[in-house]
């Protein structure tokens, strides 16, 4: 038993391919460590000068190119004929090219997105009606996290082919409120009240000044537009506070906000639906 094992061990240790295998393994492990170190140094050197997406792409590009070259060298050392591999790779390339058409298109679109920089990680964007915070930007897709904690994956080609709204690109935003007031109201007084509300609100900026517009003589009232500028992070605060303030102030000042009334008719066109109230 022992002599059989010793014989096997001897045959393994004296195998002519063993030094080559050890050398190939050393190259592979050494190469991987060197590549990891190189990508770490590249990442550190690029620092915050470049966008995280560009940094990630460069690091991945360097790593995978390096790995391919090391593998090819290791295979050559192991005695594998490279011409056969390249031939097979050519055929496989065509096959993969057809099969992975969409993925490749997404990768190329990803490169365009990185170079164009329409948004970056942390921005709030809207794509095809989907609103969310950009969580990651990868080679094939971007990932959004919605405000109700849903995960959305959008392929890069969709981003390239459709319009993207970047809500947080600029530090300032304007919130537009469309209000309807009754025809009997004094427009000048309403404008004064709205401006006063706006200027007293801590989230509404004094400059650029609030925008007031008499939009339309609508069906049930005069339609007004109030545009308030705010710092992009104050969206919820401004929206909630200003709605409350307008509602309370209009109530206090006796300004009517008209709303459409619906009457229901039961059968006869002239008589309204009878409403019966029960006596307690």
């Amino acid at each position, binding site marked *: 038993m022992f002599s059989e094992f010793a014989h096997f061990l001897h045959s393994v240790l004296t195998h002519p391919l063993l030094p080559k295998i050890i050398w190939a393994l050393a190259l592979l492990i050494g190469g991987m460590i060197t590549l990891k170190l190189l990508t770490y140094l590249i990442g550190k050197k690029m620092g915050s000068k470049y966008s995280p997406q560009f940094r990630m792409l460069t690091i991945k590009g360097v790593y995978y190119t390096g790995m391919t070259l090391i593998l090819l060298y290791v295979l050559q050392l192991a005695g594998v004929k490279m011409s056969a591999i390249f031939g097979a790779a050519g055929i496989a390339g065509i096959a993969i090219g057809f099969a992975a058409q969409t993925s490749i298109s997404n990768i190329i679109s990803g490169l365009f997105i990185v170079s164009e920089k329409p948004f970056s990680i942390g921005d709030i964007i809207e794509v095809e009606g989907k609103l969310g915070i950009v969580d990651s930007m990868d080679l094939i897709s971007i990932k959004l996290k919605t405000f109700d904690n849903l995960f959305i994956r959008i392929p890069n080609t969709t981003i390239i082919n459709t319009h993207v709204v970047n809500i947080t690109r*600029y*530090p*300032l935003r304007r919130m537009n409120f469309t209000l309807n007031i009754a025809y009997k109201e004094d427009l000048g007084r309403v404008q004064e009240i709205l401006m006063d509300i706006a*200027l007293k609100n*801590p*989230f*509404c*900026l*004094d*400059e*650029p000044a609030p925008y007031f517009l008499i939009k339309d003589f609508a069906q049930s009232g005069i339609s007004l537009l109030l545009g308030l*500028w705010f*710092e992009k992070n104050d969206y919820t605060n401004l929206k909630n506070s200003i709605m409350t303030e307008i509602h309370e102030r209009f109530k206090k000042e006796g300004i009517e906000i008209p709303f459409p009334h619906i009457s229901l008719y039961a059968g006869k066109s002239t008589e309204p639906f009878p409403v019966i109230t029960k006596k307690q």
Partner: protein
Amino acid sequence: MKAESALVRYPIPQESGQVKFSAYERKFSAVLHENRLQLYMSSGRKKELQSDIILSEKTLSTGVEIALSPSLPDKPFSLNTSHPIHVLPWSTVSFFIPIPLWAVLSVNNIPVKDIILHDFSKTWIGETGQKGDLGYTLCTDPLSDDRKLLPDAAYTEIIIENKSKVFFSIARLIIYTPFKSLYKSEGGYLYTDRQRLLINPNNKQEIKLLRPSVAVAQIVARPRKKATKDYFSRFAGFFKKVTVMS
């Protein structure tokens, strides 16, 4: 404001764990319960919690002392005067602006938190909505001298030197408070760095912050940010936007 009344320091007695004091025309109360220190500020009937700090055993063993020291607000001001400031060609104007103060709460000499004594209305200081800086609106009129001393304010001197042949009518002026130090004068009052706006013959503006013209006894608060030339040049467009030149 007299610096003495702005810098308050109170040890919190171990027995009661509470101290009440007045500063900056407001009433404060600090409560130490077990390892929590809470500071309340009252103005009128409103009492608001300003700070809630958990203290370490080490801090508690050495005794707790709180201090309020004056500080300048954290954002630049956009000064809105009731009338534009007129500057004739080849002339220099100088005036004082009272800057409302905030306070810094320190526990055992470690600064902990800004106590916001004045709420300011936010504004945008920038030529466009894409580039600029958030600031506060300050509606006050320039004072020709610093004799009319106001409570809870520090004086900032503005000097506008017009070396061009153009007449300027300035509607809004930026006061770069985050870059300014706060000083105690020998007279015991608070002053900030002076701000000099130089308009060159080619109408280009140059901004410099200088130490106050009054004799300074000590620095009370250092600037929050380091001033850079780039920062000031960012507002060149804004200056042109709010200034009528003729």
